[in-house]
């Protein structure tokens, strides 16, 4: 029988010789898989390429090994280490092709069990692992000194560890099976939708495409959406519209600019493209000493109207603020976001009415607004 160390060294030499050849055969599939994963992390085509690559690697390994065993009764490493694979128990001059293929197939499949079946080389009486027993072969040495049989203790110890390992593998396989089935029932593997170019925080159904960016910017000013959302919307307009991109997109970018220099460049760009409301809005937002009179009397943009609303609430013009809120709430996407300001305006108006009760008569509109609020929320 061949020494275990000689067989291990032969395996190492075979790996050195065969792995470049197998790599060469698999290189095309690996290249394809890498290309698929380059553009999409979870590409199905990439996974299929990987699987095909593994199949090719397996088949080429089996064929290479079988060819050497059939023609030379040994792999290259075994030839160097003066080891041969012979028929056992029935002596024959050469191995048959079927034996070579069978032995190679089971030898390679041993790696699926993390190489544990190879331990039988240490424990078996004649150092025959499963692939040797399945193909009726035996590994012998041509050296003058041959390996002794394993000690009974070695055999018992290795066998018991192998049985324990197989049991553990079976347990892990059963758990994986159960977990996969469970995830399947929970639609974990369901196809996910492609990422949209627009911000997911503002559903497309709640705002029309025409003033989507204006609505998102208004929500940003209310701190209802993130800066990433605003950037995504602005970039979508800038990069898809190109030269026709609106000044509003540049204004949105100025709101999230990282440096003052960048902010000023965006504001300059805004005013280069638009001399009216948007430029005035940019100056109002970024120049703190500007009053709302700069925003004009009949603003069109939602953002402008929102900033006017904020100013009205701050300065105590509650009826005007209520009117602004009701006008803005006609936009579906702003309705719930402005609810708090509606409540604030009515509450402040009510407080004002109670505080000034008798000193000046409340207008019919003010009383109507308060009563509507009470009816809406069931407040006594």
């Amino acid at each position, binding site marked *: 029988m061949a*020494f275990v*160390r000689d067989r*291990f*060294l032969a395996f*190492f*030499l075979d790996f*050195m*010789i065969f*792995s*470049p*050849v197998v*790599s*060469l055969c*698999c*290189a*095309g599939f*690996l*290249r394809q898989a*890498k*290309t698929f994963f*380059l*553009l*999409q*992390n979870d590409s199905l085509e990439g996974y299929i390429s990987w699987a095909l690559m593994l199949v090719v690697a397996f088949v080429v390994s089996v064929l290479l090994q079988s060819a050497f065993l059939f023609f030379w009764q040994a792999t290259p490493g075994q030839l*160097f280490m003066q080891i041969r694979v012979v028929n056992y128990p029935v002596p024959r001059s050469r191995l048959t092709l079927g034996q070579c293929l069978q032995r190679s197939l089971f030898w390679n499949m041993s790696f699926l069990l993390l190489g544990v079946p190879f331990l039988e080389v240490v424990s078996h009486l004649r150092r025959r692992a499963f692939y040797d027993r399945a193909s009726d072969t035996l590994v012998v040495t041509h050296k003058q000194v041959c390996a002794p049989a394993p000690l009974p203790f070695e055999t018992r110890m290795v066998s018991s560890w192998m049985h324990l390992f197989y049991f553990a593998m079976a347990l892990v396989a059963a758990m994986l099976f159960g977990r996969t089935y469970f995830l399947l029932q929970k639609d974990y593997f369901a196809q996910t939708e*492609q*990422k949209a*170019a627009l911000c997911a925080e503002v559903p497309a159904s709640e705002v029309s495409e025409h003033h989507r960016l204006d609505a998102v910017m208004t929500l940003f000013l209310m701190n209802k959406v993130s800066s990433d959302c605003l950037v995504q919307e602005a*970039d979508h307009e*800038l*990069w898809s519209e*190109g*030269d026709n*991109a609106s000044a509003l*997109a*540049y204004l949105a*970018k100025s709101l999230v600019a990282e440096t003052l220099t*960048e902010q000023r*460049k*965006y504001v300059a*760009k805004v005013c280069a493209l638009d001399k009216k409301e948007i430029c005035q809005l940019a100056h109002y937002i970024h120049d703190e000493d500007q009053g709302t009179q700069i925003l004009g009397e009949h603003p069109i943009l939602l953002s402008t109207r929102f900033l006017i609303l904020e100013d009205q609430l701050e300065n105590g013009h509650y009826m005007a603020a209520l009117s602004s809120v009701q006008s803005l709430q006609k936009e579906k996407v702003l309705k719930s976001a402005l609810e708090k300001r509606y409540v604030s305006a009515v509450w402040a108006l009510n407080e004002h009415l109670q505080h000034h009760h008798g000193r000046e008569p409340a207008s019919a509109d003010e009383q109507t607004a308060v009563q509507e609020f009470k009816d809406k929320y069931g407040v006594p």
Partner: protein
Amino acid sequence: MILPYTEDLRKYRSFPVTGALLLLNFLIFIFLLNAGGETPMNSPLLEEKAMVLSGRLYYQFLQSLPAEQLYLRPTWVRQVHSDDLEQVEVLGAYALRDRNFMEQASEQSFRGDQVQIEAWQKDVESFKDSSSQQLAYRFGLTSLESSPLSWITYQFAHSGWMHLLSNSVFLAIIGATVESLCGGLSLVLIYTLGGIAGGLGFLLMSAHGTVPMVGASASISALLAFYCVAEPRRRIRYLYFVSPLPHHFGAIYLPTLLMIPLFLVTDAASLWAIPEGLGSGVAYSAHLGGAFLGLILGCAYRQLRWPQRQLLRDF
């Protein structure tokens, strides 16, 4: 672990040319290390957002190319969706490797966020300036910098200590072997011509690239291939180590031809496995170019008559 270890290596004084080549590589590396300029690796162009921007601009650049130039680019580049920012980011990484794009980037007008584009064009200029000051670009070989001298200087420049060390180990072993076989002049000839052939191989595979190549790997591949063909039947001693147990370490004699699958076939497989248009940090095409020349020189060596072989050895 298994490493070649020829017995002759202990007689290091017998290999003056190999020693000289090693010393030259080491001295040039020290010189380049001390004289290195500002690294372009800190450039804002390499940040994620800048990569996306580069990708968007490169996408517009591709749309402006005529069909025959567009089809010189890899297939996956042409399949990128401009709406998918992850794909655009990958495209941006490729854009920095496209020589034509980088040359025109500063002057070309692009659609989109003009403030970002203006800042990006300034970053491109400073990136190109700092890159050109890098000694790897000045002494290395690229399609941008391919002066006659760079074909030689790149063979002696290395990108780091590990690069130098690994090449030096192989140069010491194979250089000593080739020098003992056919003398110092042949060694220098094979080293230099192998490096030039490796450079040709590299430029053939990356004709439009901007990344420079440095290192003695192509020259060493030429020496390896030369020796495999010149002395195919000779056995080389390898030292192996599996474990400290008795009989698990020692020496084994393996034929020279074993080096072909170990190094050259592996290089071919690695080159083929790289996605089109991308690099891997190792210039496999240069290795193969040098090896190809080494194979030819090895065959030529075997055709020489015995007296001529003796003459080369005595030189």
